[in-house]
């Protein structure tokens, strides 16, 4: 059996787990990330929603309920965490734009506007005004993008369709990594008679060298171009995840991917080690501290049985917001379902309440009262609590 000891072991390789891992490794700690598989942020728009609150998301933190995880983090630390995120991404092919003090909107494939805060560079110009011209580029046979949803809402718009043999966003994105394909696309685009204004296309501008591809097309066309995030699998979500993961690896972090946790070792009030299994091969991962970032229901960190809710790794106590028949409201188009409040309650140092382990911390969407959909804080909450839990974890290790 392999035996390895780390300063911190992060359970979960999604947004909050990777942010915690990056914060800790940035402080010179020996860090490992354990993950069952690709996280749900691969399915997201890639944008960092901080808080749906008028124009300034940070200004709304104080009006959140007292038990909301953001309140535990505090405005200053939230701003610092987002700054760290922007810095990390700025060093890569996937820089982010935006200001943590200001909300902005992006255009969705339905033609609606989504409120968010930090956006990939490729969506910098996605905040559209009804009077400016938008030209939508689509691809024939693409499954998850239908320009008329958008053009019907924007009177001042037009569209062109580029022919590719491939139909999925992932396959088209892969083709954009080829120089010859890009050349062909740019030549075709230049040949279209497009009025002055912006050009929008589904988010297919590559998966590895997006920054370069975006610059090249923008310069050749000499006008604002932006991407529209599509349904899963979403390229911006995938880029975000891969970038954070690769940055962590580049800093010397260890990753145990595709592993199930088969047993947990306890020593006194300490969580001592985890045993991971991978097709019969066991690995023991020992740590001074552990961070639980396994996510909520979609990620599998929480599981709802018919009449109870379980935390899947340690069986930690879970805040269950009401009986099953009241978990959801009747209207699909509302947020604030009671189930959104389910999760792990933590104290001010991000330790789960009533946890048997003093060296276990928790962050991300597994936290109780986060209500990510209601408050529009997807990814923002993960970045902030991942960063904050890492700080507490680091203090503990010292």
């Amino acid at each position: 059996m392999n035996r390895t000891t780390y300063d911190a072991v992060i359970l979960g390789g999604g947004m909050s787990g990777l942010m915690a891992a990056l914060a800790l490794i940035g402080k010179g700690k020996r860090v490992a990330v354990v993950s069952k598989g690709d996280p749900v942020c691969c399915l997201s728009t890639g944008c960092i929603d901080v808080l749906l609150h008028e124009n300034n998301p940070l200004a709304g933190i104080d009006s959140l309920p007292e038990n909301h995880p953001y309140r535990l983090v505090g405005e200053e630390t939230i701003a610092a965490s987002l700054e760290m995120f922007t810095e990390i991404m700025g060093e890569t092919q996937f820089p982010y734009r935006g200001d943590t003090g200001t909300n902005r909107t992006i255009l969705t494939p339905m033609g609606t506007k989504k409120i968010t805060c930090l956006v990939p560079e490729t969506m910098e110009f996605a905040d559209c005004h009804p009077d400016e011209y938008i030209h939508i580029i689509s691809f024939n046979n693409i499954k998850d993008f239908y320009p008329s949803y958008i053009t019907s809402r924007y009177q001042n718009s037009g569209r062109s369709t580029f022919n590719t043999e491939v139909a999925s966003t992932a396959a088209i994105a892969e083709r954009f990594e080829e120089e010859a394909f890009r050349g062909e696309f740019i030549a075709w685009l230049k040949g279209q008679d497009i009025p002055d204004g912006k050009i929008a296309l589904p988010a297919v501008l590559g998966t590895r060298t997006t920054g370069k591809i975006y610059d090249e097309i923008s310069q050749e066309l000499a006008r604002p171009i932006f991407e529209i995030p599509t349904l899963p699998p979403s390229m911006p979500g995938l880029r975000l995840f891969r970038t954070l993961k690769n940055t962590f690896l580049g800093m010397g972090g260890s990753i145990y991917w595709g592993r199930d946790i088969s047993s947990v070792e306890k020593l006194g009030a300490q969580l001592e080690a985890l045993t991971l299994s991978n097709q019969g091969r066991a690995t023991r991962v020992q740590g001074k501290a552990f961070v639980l970032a396994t996510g909520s229901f979609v990620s599998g960190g929480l599981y709802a049985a018919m009449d109870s809710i379980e935390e899947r790794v340690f069986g930690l106590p879970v805040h269950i917001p009401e009986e099953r028949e009241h978990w959801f409201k009747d209207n699909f188009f509302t947020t604030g379902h009671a189930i959104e409040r389910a999760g792990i309650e933590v104290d001010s140092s991000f330790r789960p309440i009533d946890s048997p382990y003093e060296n276990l911390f928790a962050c991300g969407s597994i936290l109780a009262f986060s209500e990510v959909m209601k408050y529009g804080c997807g990814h923002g909450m993960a970045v902030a609590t991942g960063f904050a839990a890492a700080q507490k974890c680091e203090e503990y290790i010292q």
Partner: protein
Amino acid sequence: MLHYREGMNMLLNTDVIIIGGGSTGCGIARDLALRGIPHCLIERYDFASGATGACHGLLHSGGRYVVNDPEAAAECISENMILRKIGEKCVEPTGGLFVRLPGDSKRYRDNFLRRCAATGIPTEVLSPSRALDLVPNLNPSLEEAITVPDCSIDPFRLCMLNVTSSEKRGGEILTHHQIIEIIKEHGRCVGVKAQEQTTGDIKEIRGKVIINAGGAWSDRIATLAGNKVRLSLSKGSLIIANHRLTNMVLNRLRPASDGDLLVPNEAVCLSGTTSLTVENPDDLEVYPSEVDMLAREATAMVPEFGTTRLIRTYAGVRPLLSADTDDGREISRGFRIIDHRDGMLSIVGGKLTTYRLMAEKMTDTVMDIFGLKTQCTTAEVPLEGQEELSGYPLSKRLKDISDIICECELVNRHDVERVAQKVGTRHIGDIQHRTRLGMGPCQGGFCTYRALGIMQETGKMTPQESTRILKEFLQRRFKGIKPALWGDQLREEQLVESIYLGILAMEQEQ
């Protein structure tokens, strides 16, 4: 075929007006067509929108009724044999088992076997090991199982194929038309006024006979002509599990009660049903307590059911012949034709399995009124249009695998475009019923957005319309899933929510 200008009030003359596009109405249209009688079928929504589409998709062998209602059972076995012959593309001859679990009455079992023999329902008694050989997921502690010739049937396809015969012979089919008036002259019904649901256009249809095949809504239709149909409405709820846990229909060998049925249907299986008297067939809700009970009962027969994701719940209303009892199961499953003596005939009761027989009797009645003698041939002539259907083999669908729009049911762009181009296609349901799009494990969570996108790109509907329909669809879908939200289904639901509310921001708009 009729031609008329959009927006113009039009008049159509025919011989027989059929109200209701469930299995009975569609069956009558086919029978009239084969006997050469001009007719017009009017349906409020799409075919199979009422009890037909909300049933369990079981073509009964009669076993379920043989102890309490041998007459209905005899009709079932005879119709079962006819339908598997004429409708091979919508009937899957799965066979069925009546499963006796520990504690289930041995006396009922003996009675069951005796009655099956008397009624002509072929049975074979299987030992537990032979039963497990056929259905490995069965509860291994079963006492025994008895085979019956149950089948799984696709009610949407059944309606569509029946209508095909009518369309081929000039029958007029008006879906998405609501009857707003029944025209009476000198005390006789002489026609109806029907309003197109989306455009609001009104058509006047004149006929010599009006057949009311409105199922649970037949009393409302009768009332429009000043008539009365005494019905007892019994709600039946069902739940759908994500996997085809059994290849045979499974019945519990005990007196009919809630949750005694498990039916395989393509990639999924259904557990049902409940029986609760209701007043209003338009307002059905599945209660979490029903879901729990159905899941518990199905788990008793197939333990694996307890850990399988439930993807949807739904409920239909059985329009039963009225009787003075509170339990819907005690009421006869037989049917009756009511002559209101004013040119209107109502057909009530019955069940999907006997739809053809009901249509035959109704058409015979019409022929008597017209003094015509042409005999019914619906039991011999195979359903038309089956050659266009892929049938059940997966291999055929895999050949056409490119450009898949619905991953769960392997529906490709071409299928969606073809149906979208057809006259009368206006709603997402029209496509779902004709292609099975959205009927699989994700229940349209991903593909509905695509199908509507394709419909608007082909100019079939405006983007505003498609957005409205998408919203209605998502709301209806949510209503069906909500009572069964736990486990993996809750996980899936939160993902769908994050797509439509998070990525597509469909909520921020409201």
